[in-house]
Structures are given as structure tokens and as C-alpha cells.
């Protein structure tokens, strides 16, 4: 089928975006709308001594100036982290109180203290600057080392030493014993740099309170509007769930940063009730840097042991994770169940142990960002394996080959059970596409031009399809991680699919429709995907963790199963045949080998006229399903990066990048490849360019596009993206998920290539020109090349 599974169908949703008709939250204007501007802390850590609002209140256009005392006085609850992690000793994590508007203390630069509601944006901003907040500055812990140092300032009273939890996974004694008996041990200190997600659309919210109905409506840049409604209702007590509608219209990218429910949405809803006016807030980019949850920020010590044949015998990892000033919604799960559980990588490792110490600092909260824990794990594993190969004088590809998991299912020592894969197959495909064996010639040619050329590989694995509800529940998750779908066949045969997944660039309106078109043999254009509105769609869990394919589509398949049963019964009844004899194709329900057939629309009409249905059958043709995955899915792949470095400047060019991924069954290869391209660019950005920098006083240094280096078109090459897929064994269509892979596998591939080129393994991300140049000086390779 040209429109079905596996077809590179052009996207249905494109037309509105390419003609400027997309509808993003900031494009919405409510009647009688006001604007919110937040008063934010300029200090990383301070006591609030007083808030003087009278000057602001007297300014032109100002409707209200509201602060944290009023917010808490109205019973609005604190923000929460929804995943409870316990320390080694069984004690619960130390979650500090986080009010949407700070009351007694501010804990990071950008912490909201008050809000001005005014008739225009300019008036709101001008008045916000006139709000006088007096502070008593406190000592600051701006990074992990400062927060965990002896005598560090205490950021939350209930978190002694700024420790949130001290957690572990795996068998420490077994790992230590294996390392003690190893023929070779590779030991590394690894930093995973702090990143700002930077979806191109800044966060925005428009809240409206209808006092006649006591009902709230929130338009929001959300990846998961139902979860937003649940949290706003159950925890923040902004409005009861049945009196709150959350709509996430077109959303301009998320990458994790739009999962969470932030103070601004809470305050806009509350302020709309206080003022009886619609309230809009849209972040400026600087505000995005100051308030969007950041990603990564790990410091790790790791030791990997090998026997004389190069087999990995044991692996010990100790990680310190920066959570920022407050625990964001998913933060606690990222360095634990999304990180430590992937430390077996693509390898058969008999003993693994990981401990994670999570701490507060006076910085923006840190949470899941594209890959969330899995890029950190992949970076640790793939840097160690590569380094070990060099130390032992082994070919890095062959060392990986010796250690690959080769039989499935495979139970790792860190809870995950890999269902499928052909890791060698992906590596072989990538090596061939990259002309691995011809590298020496290219290196020599580059040297003739005065360039240092290096090649680096990474074989990542990740866990997607998040997640089996009972499993995550037992690990502390506050929610189930199933997905829902409803398939409505209209009386005229057109189909609406309501999904709890949310599309903010992933192309669901096309791929989800492809699945249904193939299933029922109907045209793609007859199918409409509905998402992102809690008033339209049954409860859903939203889009993150590459879950929309493996979990969201599985729910649609399950609902289609139920529709198909009813379609067959109705058609069999009308055609006087057995339901099992019928086939659905070419917009008909047919009896094969005969000319007996009903149009698809005739079946739909029959279901709704209900004049002649099988005895006892309810009218209508609409079915819903909730799909709870039985396991995570495990996309994996082999990435190979080739770089050229100018030894005179340290400037690194990624000249070739090859990916061979295993995503299971692919619905739309064009869209899947696009996901990989974007992920690789983010990973190359992390490896070479991006870092969210705070000075020791907690002031953000890279808080704009003048300072934070986003990857531009010239910073990346065209990518070679190939697939060597094995079917996922645990969901109906065999889908593994593809949204994060590119960002997971690319940082280690790039850094392995750079360290190969310069002959110095001591380099941290981002490998800026200055760092690479210094590393070249330290190793002397630059002089040799010249």
C-alpha cells in the first residue's frame, strides 16, 4: 500500500506550517486579554525581606500585582516531583518545597517572586520593573562540587548537605570483585555538560476563567495536556479536574522541556480567576534560558574491567547529578531508572554497579531533555569501551564485537530485559556505509592538507516505549505510563482517531493515519488525528521518551482491533457471510473471490442507522482502548563520526556522520530519518558547542543566543542514515521508537573521533576550539601534523 506502513508519505500537517497558518499558543488572542510579566530574582540565593508593589500598582494599564503570599493564601499548592526515589538506606528522597511564586527565599536566578497583570505586554513589563523586592543575599552553591562541599550553604532545610538521594543499582560486591580480578581496568572521570533544551517556540500560556461556570481554560505549550490538567488539579489545587480544560495547540518543539508544569501556567490560571480576565504570558528567549528545565549535568567516575581476551568482566559507576534548585516533575527518574538501567549498553556485562548522588544547587531545575539519562549512560559506556580499546591496543570495533549481546531475550544486570536486536548487523552496516576500512587513506590525505582527521564509533542502546505501568509503579512512579486511543468511524465512513499522544513536530497526524489507513484499507485523507485537547480526547499520557510510536500507536492498534471486530460482524450480517471470510481493502469490505462487497462507508452508515444490525448489537462504530506496554522497547544503533581538526585553531569539522539504527518496524521512513537528523544535530551540538554556564555566584553566563551556541547549518554535515531493523517482540506492530536515538549516540561518536584525531583522550564536552587546541598542545600532535 502506497499510503500504509513503510511508505514515506509526505506530511498531512505541513500545509498549515508552510503557509504561516499554524496556530501556536502565542498566536491565540482571547477577547479582553491581559498580559502577565514576572518579577524574577536577580540573585541565585537570597531571603525575601519585602515586596513593595505600590509604585507598580499605580502605573498605566496595571490591573493587579500578585505575590507568593497571596498565592499560598489562596491555597495554591507547591510544585512536585512525581517519581519517588529512595536512598540506599531506604530513606525517601528529600523534596524541598517549591512555590510557584517564592515566598520566603529565592533559590536561583529567575525564580519568580511576583507577577504583574496589565492591559498590554509593554505595560506589564514596565510595571514588573517597578516592583521593589528587597533581598538579603545568601551564600551560593552554583555547581555539584560547591553543593556537596563541607559547609556548603543549605538550599532546602529538609535536605542536609544538599543531598536529594544517594541511590544505587546492581551488585556492588560482584562488580568490585570482577574489577579486582580483571586483566585490564579502564578508569575515567566524565562530565556530561549542562544543556538548555531550546525548543524554537518559547513557552507560552493563555488562561481564561469563566466565573459563570466556575471553569478554567488553559492554552499551553505542553507535550502532555492531560498530565498538566491532572497535576494542576490534584497537586496544585488550581481548579478541579472537571472544571479545567487544557489545550496544547501547535507546539513548536519540546525535547522534554514542555513536559513539566511550570510556575507560569499555575500563576496565569490563578491570576485569570483573581482578575476575571484572560491572562497571557509568553517567554522571551532569555526567560527561557532562565526558567525552562535544563538537561544533563552529571559528573561521573567509572571503572570498566576486561579479561585477557577483551571481554568485559565488571563495571562500576559513581555519578553525581545536579538537580538545580527544585525537583522538577520527572527529575528524580532521569539519573536513576533512565540512566543506570542502560549501563550494560549493547554489551554482555556480568557484573554492574551504579551509585547516584543527586543534589540541589542554586540553578534552574534540571530534568529530562531529549534522551534523558540514556545519553548520559551511552556517553559513559561508549567513552570507556573506546578508551579501553586504545589502552589495550585493540581495534575498537572488534572489542565491541567481542562483547555484544548476541542472544535475545537478554537480561542485563541492571534490570532491563532486551527483547530483540542484531547489534553486529548494525555495526557492520555502519562501518560499510562509513568506509571504515578506507579511513587510513583519508587520514593521510587530510594530513597532507595540514588537518588532523579522526574516526569515532558509538554503539548506543536506549529504553523507549515508556513504560509498563506496574513496573514503573513499583519503582516509585506516581502515574501509569500507558496510552489511550479512540477510533471513531463516522456514518459516512470517515475516521477520527483521538490519541493521548501529543505531536509537537513528530508528524503524528501523518504516521498515525498511515497505520489506520492500512488497517482498514481506506484513504489517508479520510482519517483525521485529534490530539492535544482534554475536552476532546480521553485521558492520555502525552509524548516523551520516544513513546508515541511504541505505546501511542499500540493503543490505536488495540482500538482498531475492536472496531474491526464490529465491522466484520455488521458486514457479515449484511452480506450473509461469516465474519472471518471478509477482507478490508480499497475502501470496501469484501468477500474474496466473489463480487460481494460493501463500501466502507456503507458499513459505517449501517452502524449508525441501526436498521439492520446483528441481533443484540449496539448502534454506532466507535471503540476506545488503553494500551499498557509489557516491556520497554530497545532501539539501538551504531553511529560513526569522522572529524577534521585544524591544529592551528582547534576548530573541529564533522565531515561525515553515519547512523545505522534498529527501530523495529518503521511506519514512515521519511519522518523517522528526520527524527534521526535532528537528534544527531543536537548531539553534535552537545559534543562541540553547547553548554549552559553558571558562574560561581550562580549567575547564568550563557543566557541568550549571543552566548549559548546553538548548532547552525554550517556546524553539521548532511547525514547518512541507514536502518537494520529487527522487530520489537513486545508490542503489536513491532515498533521500537526513534525520537531520541540521534541525540543519544552522537556525543560519544564525536568525542571518540576527536580524541582519535588529536591523540589526547582528555577532553570534555563541549569540545570547543579552545579546548581542542589546548589538548593538541598538550599531546604534541599538532606539531607532528605540521
Amino acid at each position: 500500500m502506497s499510503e500504509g506502513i513503510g511508505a514515506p508519505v509526505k506530511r498531512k500537517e505541513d500545509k498549515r506550517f508552510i503557509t504561516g497558518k499554524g496556530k501556536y499558543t502565542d498566536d491565540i488572542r482571547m477577547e479582553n486579554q491581559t498580559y502577565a510579566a514576572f518579577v524574577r530574582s536577580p540573585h541565585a540565593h537570597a531571603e525575601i525581606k519585602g515586596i513593595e508593589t505600590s509604585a507598580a500598582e499605580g502605573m498605566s494599564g496595571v490591573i493587579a500585582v500578585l505575590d507568593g503570599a497571596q498565592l499560598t493564601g489562596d491555597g495554591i499548592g507547591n510544585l512536585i516531583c512525581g517519581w519517588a526515589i529512595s536512598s540506599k538506606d531506604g530513606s525517601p528522597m528529600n523534596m524541598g518545597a517549591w512555590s510557584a511564586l517564592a515566598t520566603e527565599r529565592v533559590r536561583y536566578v529567575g525564580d519568580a517572586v511576583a507577577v504583574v497583570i496589565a492591559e498590554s505586554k509593554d505595560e506589564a513589563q514596565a510595571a514588573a520593573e517597578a516592583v521593589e523586592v528587597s533581598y538579603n543575599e545568601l551564600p551560593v552553591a552554583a555547581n555539584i562540587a560547591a553543593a556537596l562541599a563541607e559547609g556548603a550553604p543549605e538550599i532546602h532545610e529538609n535536605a542536609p548537605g544538599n543531598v536529594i538521594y544517594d541511590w544505587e543499582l546492581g551488585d556492588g560486591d560482584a562488580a568490585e570483585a570482577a574489577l579486582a580480578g580483571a586483566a585490564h581496568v579502564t578508569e575515567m572521570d566524565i562530565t556530561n555538560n549542562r544543556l538548555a533544551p531550546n525548543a524554537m517556540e518559547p513557552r507560552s500560556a493563555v488562561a481564561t476563567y469563566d466565573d459563570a461556570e466556575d471553569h478554567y481554560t488553559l492554552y499551553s505549550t505542553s507535550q502532555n495536556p492531560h498530565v498538566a490538567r491532572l497535576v494542576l488539579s490534584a497537586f496544585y489545587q488550581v481548579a478541579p479536574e472537571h472544571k479545567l480544560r487544557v489545550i496544547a495547540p501547535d507546539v513548536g518543539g519540546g525535547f522534554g522541556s514542555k513536559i513539566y508544569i511550570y510556575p507560569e501556567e499555575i500563576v496565569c490560571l490563578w491570576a485569570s480567576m483573581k482578575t476575571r480576565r484572560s491572562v497571557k504570558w509568553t517567554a522571551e528567549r532569555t526567560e527561557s534560558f532562565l526558567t525552562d528545565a535544563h538537561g544533563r549535568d552529571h559528573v561521573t567516575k567509572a571503572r570498566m574491567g576486561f579479561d585477557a581476551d577483551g571481554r568485559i568482566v565488571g563495571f562500576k559507576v559513581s555519578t553525581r547529578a545536579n538537580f538545580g534548585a527544585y525537583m522538577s516533575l520527572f527529575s528524580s527518574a532521569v539519573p536513576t531508572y533512565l540512566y543506570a538501567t542502560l549501563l550494560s549498553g549493547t554489551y554482555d556485562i556480568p557484573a554492574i554497579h551504579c551509585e547516584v548522588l543527586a543534589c540541589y544547587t542554586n540553578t534552574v531545575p534540571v530534568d529530562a531533555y531529549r534522551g534523558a539519562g540514556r545519553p548520559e549512560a551511552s556517553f559513559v559506556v561508549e567513552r570507556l569501551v573506546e578508551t579501553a580499546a586504545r589502552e589495550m591496543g585493540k581495534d575498537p570495533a572488534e572489542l565491541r564485537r567481542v562483547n555484544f549481546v548476541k542472544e535475545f531475550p537478554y537480561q542485563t544486570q541492571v534490570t532491563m530485559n532486551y527483547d530483540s536486536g542484531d547489534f553486529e548487523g548494525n555495526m557492520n552496516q555502519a562501518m560499510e556505509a562509513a568506509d571504515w576500512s578506507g579511513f587510513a587513506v583519508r587520514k593521510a590525505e587530510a594530513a597532507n592538507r595540514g588537518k588532523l582527521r579522526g574516526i569515532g564509533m558509538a554503539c548506543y542502546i536506549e529504553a523507549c516505549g515508556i513504560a509498563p505501568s506496574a513496573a514503573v509503579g513499583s519503582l516509585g512512579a506516581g502515574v501509569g505510563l500507558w496510552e489511550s486511543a479512540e477510533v471513531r468511524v463516522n456514518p459516512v465512513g470517515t475516521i477520527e482517531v483521538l490519541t493521548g499522544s501529543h505531536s509537537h513536530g513528530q508528524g503524528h497526524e501523518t504516521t498515525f493515519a498511515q497505520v489506520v489507513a492500512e488497517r482498514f484499507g481506506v484513504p489517508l485523507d479520510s482519517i483525521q488525528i485529534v490530539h492535544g485537547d482534554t475536552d476532546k480526547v480521553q485521558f492520555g499520557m502525552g509524548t516523551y521518551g520516544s513513546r508515541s510510536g511504541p505505546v501511542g500507536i499500540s493503543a490505536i492498534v488495540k482500538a482498531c482491533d475492536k472496531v474491526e471486530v464490529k465491522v466484520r460482524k455488521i458486514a457479515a450480517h449484511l452480506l450473509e457471510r461469516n465474519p472471518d471470510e471478509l477482507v478490508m481493502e480499497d475502501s470496501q469490505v469484501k468477500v474474496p473471490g466473489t463480487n460481494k462487497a460493501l463500501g466502507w462507508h456503507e458499513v459505517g452508515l449501517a452502524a449508525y442507522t441501526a436498521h439492520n444490525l446483528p441481533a443484540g448489537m449496539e448502534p454506532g462504530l466507535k471503540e476506545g482502548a488503553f494500551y499498557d506496554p509489557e516491556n520497554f522497547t530497545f532501539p539501538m544503533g551504531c553511529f560513526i563520526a569522522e572529524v577534521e581538526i585544524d591544529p592551528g585553531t582547534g576548530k573541529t569539522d564533522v565531515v561525515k556522520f553515519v547512523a545505522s539504527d534498529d527501530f523495529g518496524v518503521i511506519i514512515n521512513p521519511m519522518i523517522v530519518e528526520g527524527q534521526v537528523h535532528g537528534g544527531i544535530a543536537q548531539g553534535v551540538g552537545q559534543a562541540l558547542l553547547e553548554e549552559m554556564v553558571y558562574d560561581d555566584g550562580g549567575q547564568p553566563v550563557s543566557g541568550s543566543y549571543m552566548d549559548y551556541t546553538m548548532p547552525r547549518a554550517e556546524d553539521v554535515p548532511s547525514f547518512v542514515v541507514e536502518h537494520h531493523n529487527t522487530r520489537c517482540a513486545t508490542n503489536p506492530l513491532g515498533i521500537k521508537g526513534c525520537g531520541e536515538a540521534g541525540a543519544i549516540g552522537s556525543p560519544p561518536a564525536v568525542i571518540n573521533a576527536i580524541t582519535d584525531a588529536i591523540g589526547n583522550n582528555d577532553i570534555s564536552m563541549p569540545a570547543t576550539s579552545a579546548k581542542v587546541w589546548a589538548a593538541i598542545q598538550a599531546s604534541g600532535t599538532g606539531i607532528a601534523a605540521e
Partner: protein
Amino acid sequence: MSTVSMTVNGKAVSADVEDRTLLVDYIREHLRLTGTHVGCDTSQCGTCVIHVDGKAVKSCSMLAAAAEGAEVTTIEGVANGDLHPMQRAFNDNHGLQCGFCTPGMIMSGIDMVNRYKAEGRTLDEAAIRHELEGNICRCTGYHNIVKSIAQAASEM
């Protein structure tokens, strides 16, 4: 306050605006043409690119008053009925994902093709990547944006 008059997408428009009003705010908030976006506050991201008198301009870096008498084209006005070849190329090549940077990319793309054609220069992949310095995309990794602009360049 000043009265400004200009032609936007072929239509004469006139309004009283504050002197500090940026052209992008005039377009989005006064004319309600919301296809032109705002993605940063430092003139880096390029989501606000429009054409002023036939040249690509970041409409966040120009005052509405400075566009007095100008001929302005936004993403809503690039096509005559059907899609512009640059718009079609973005659809053909999956040159967009979330769509937020897309109007600016299309406006920059059209401008660069026009300039290179006028100057008789070849717009190859390296040139396209160089010319996209002022437009940031976080979704596509630029791969398919480059392909889209290359296709449109061969058709325009």
C-alpha cells in the same frame, strides 16, 4: 505615536503605532499575521524573517515606523494561490517538523535563491549552509532544509 503606512502582501495598510513598536509586533499583533514568529530577543534565530522591498529582513530588528512606505511580504503572502516552489519543496523534502522556524526558513530560502540567481552564482550545499547562518532550527538538523532549498533553487 506615529501613523505608518505600508503595503503588506499587496494590501495597503495604515495604523497608529508607538514609536518603539517593532515591525514584527506590528505584523503579529496589529495585522494579526501570526505566521511570522518570535523565537529570540537578540536577532539570532530568524523565525521572524520577512521581505521588505524584496530583501530578507529580521522583522524583530526593525521598527514598524522604519517600514513607512515599504513593500512588505510575509509568509502568508509569498504564494499566488497555489504554493510557492519553496513552500512545496519544504513539504516534498520533509524540511520541517514543529514548523516554528519554517516561515523564516522559507523567507530566507526564497531570498537566497533570488540573490544567487541575480548574481549568477551557484547555490550549492555549502552555500546554502553558509547562508542559513541567521536561521536556527532545533528539529531537523538542517539536513532536509538544505535539500528543500536546493530543490526550490532548481525550480525557481
